[in-house]
């Protein structure tokens, strides 16, 4: 194989890596080996070989095609040009967007049921004052929030997984261990061992928007998180507005008032503007390891973002890939007239598994279902 072709292949790998594909040095070696083994007959063949080795999910096909075209075009091959600058195209529309929108319509009906349609002016500090809205919440109803949180927590903790573990008691006989133990008393299975379902460990990572436009809601949502964290150990809480801050420790206070005091002392840009994309990027970078295939990520925000929507979209995609579910709770969704048209919300929508309202108790109860699914 010509040195030029090897060079070109390596350049292709580098460009793909720069564009966020999962391409390692091992892939580059494989790519060259694969070309040697199968791919020199035609440009078409070369394309198929390299795609098979270097692409690992369908979303990457378009990027691959672009980069391949730029680096392996006939002109480039003829003139022997080095790596070519390739122009970036906007990401393709994801069919998941439709799903999220459909579920949004349903949830909207459920959450706003029986309420009068009304206008919710966007990021201002005006708020829908429907009877059940958090805006009109009395102290007695705070207890209800705690009750819901406790119930969700109980169900999360008690949920059995599909896997079994050995135990002294359980619903099924563990034949393997019983046999093993029986050998010490001449194969008489006196000491029975059992198997039981291992509890499923769902972890929740909650990112709560505390910027100005969320002022009214974040108080209640934080309360909800506080109650949730009081019962399940595996809740990680963060607040964000222009920057991100982990508040898991602060929320561990025995009393909510204390936790709140701690929060306002520690979080300085409380009620400022919002840069969701940057905060999520900071989260992915610093706390990314908290999210795995068993983690439900919940973002509580109205989607009013003053940052870069492209960055927000990219970070959301990363979160979606890593997590079990990605849930966005938007208090504004409680209003029947609300449309998620802000740039930030538009960028985030395609990546959500659930887009639901969080403005009243009904919607918090619905959250139970989203977290457990």
């Amino acid at each position, binding site marked *: 194989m010509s040195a030029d072709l090897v060079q070109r292949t390596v350049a292709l790998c580098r460009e793909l890596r720069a564009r966020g594909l999962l391409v390692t040095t091992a892939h580059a070696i494989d790519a060259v080996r694969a070309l040697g083994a199968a791919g020199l007959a035609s440009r078409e063949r070369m394309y198929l070989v390299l795609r098979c080795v270097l692409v690992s999910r369908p979303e990457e096909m378009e990027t691959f095609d672009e980069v391949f075209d730029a680096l392996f075009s006939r002109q480039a091959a003829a003139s022997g040009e080095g790596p070519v600058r390739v122009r970036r195209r906007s990401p393709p529309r994801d069919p998941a967007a439709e799903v999220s929108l459909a579920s949004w319509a349903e949830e909207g009906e459920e959450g706003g049921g029986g309420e009068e349609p009304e206008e919710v002016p966007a990021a201002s500090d005006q708020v829908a004052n429907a009877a059940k809205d958090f805006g009109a919440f009395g102290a007695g109803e705070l207890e209800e929030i705690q009750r819901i949180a406790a119930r969700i927590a109980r169900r999360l903790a008690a949920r059995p997984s*599909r896997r079994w573990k050995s135990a002294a008691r359980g619903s099924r006989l563990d034949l393997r261990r019983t046999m093993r133990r029986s050998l010490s008393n001449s194969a008489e299975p006196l000491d029975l061992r059992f198997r039981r379902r291992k509890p499923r460990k769902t972890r929740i990572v909650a990112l709560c928007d505390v910027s100005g436009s969320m002022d009214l809601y974040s108080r209640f949502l934080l309360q909800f998180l506080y109650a949730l964290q009081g019962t399940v150990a595996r809740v990680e809480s963060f607040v964000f507005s222009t920057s991100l801050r982990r508040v898991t420790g602060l929320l561990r206070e025995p009393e909510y008032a204390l936790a709140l005091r701690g929060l306002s002392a520690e979080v300085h840009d409380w009620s400022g503007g919002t840069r969701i994309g940057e905060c999520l990027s900071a989260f992915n970078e610093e706390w990314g390891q908290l999210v795995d295939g068993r983690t439900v990520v919940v973002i509580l925000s109205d989607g009013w973002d003053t940052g870069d929507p492209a960055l927000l979209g990219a970070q959301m995609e990363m979160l979606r890939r890593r997590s079990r579910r990605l849930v966005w709770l938007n208090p504004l969704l409680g209003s029947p007239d609300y449309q998620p048209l802000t740039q930030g919300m538009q960028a985030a929508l395609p990546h959500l598994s659930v887009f639901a309202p969080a403005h009243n108790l009904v919607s918090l109860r619905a959250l139970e279902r989203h977290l457990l699914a």
Partner: protein
Amino acid sequence: MADPAIATSLHLALELRKPLLIEGHAGVGKTEIAKVLARMLGTDLIRLQCYEGLDTSTALYEWNYARQLLHIRMQERDGHAAAEAEAKIFSEAFLLKRPLLQAIAHEGQAPVLLVDEIDRSDEEFEAFLLEVLSDFQVTVPELGTISARERPHVILTSNRSRELSDALRRRCLYLFIDHPPFAKELAIVRRKVPGASEELAAQIVGLVQRLRTARLAKVPGVSETLDWAAALVVLHAAHLTPEIVGETLGCALKDEGDLRKVRAEIESGRLPVGGP
């Protein structure tokens, strides 16, 4: 009917000896590829069907307890000591080999190991599988380490019901199979359902292709097209009419909401069914 992308991927999987991960919609023939590969190589196909909760005792191995117990009883009757029995009952004769171990302990020509619908298993199993795929050896505590003489050819399929880990993706070659274009699907129908007339086959494929562009909860795959064609042949349909489509639509659409939606489209004439 070898598609160049599929042929290239299989060729590479054989040459580089790497697992091939095949993704695509349900019913595009992902599983079929493994079967064809095994037939082509003239070797055995070992299939591991994944599901949530799949664990090592169903995927790898399990001891044959009933046989172990019987054996111990017989040994006792003949007056042998328990220690002697223990050595015997944890030997290969009492081991039930599940698909992964079968593939590793396979004698002769390397088999094709099909790990079907890996996305339905859980993350723990995926991690375990990754370990097996990286060195093709398994340790059974009572027996020692068993390693593959010939690395099996591994094909994994996924319906994308959940995102697979990057670690797994990194280790595999990748093939995405989309729904086939009209001409190819028509050829498949003609070959698999020889009883369907040219006209009928073209009409069915045309209609299914149109249905795929609609927003449906469950998009019909090639296997649905084939089922539908076969059903129409049984009903002696020479060509499609709105009535017969209405009666047999359930072959292609498996979701109540989809059925209602498409029936309404056909009744209103917005979706023509008679034309070629």
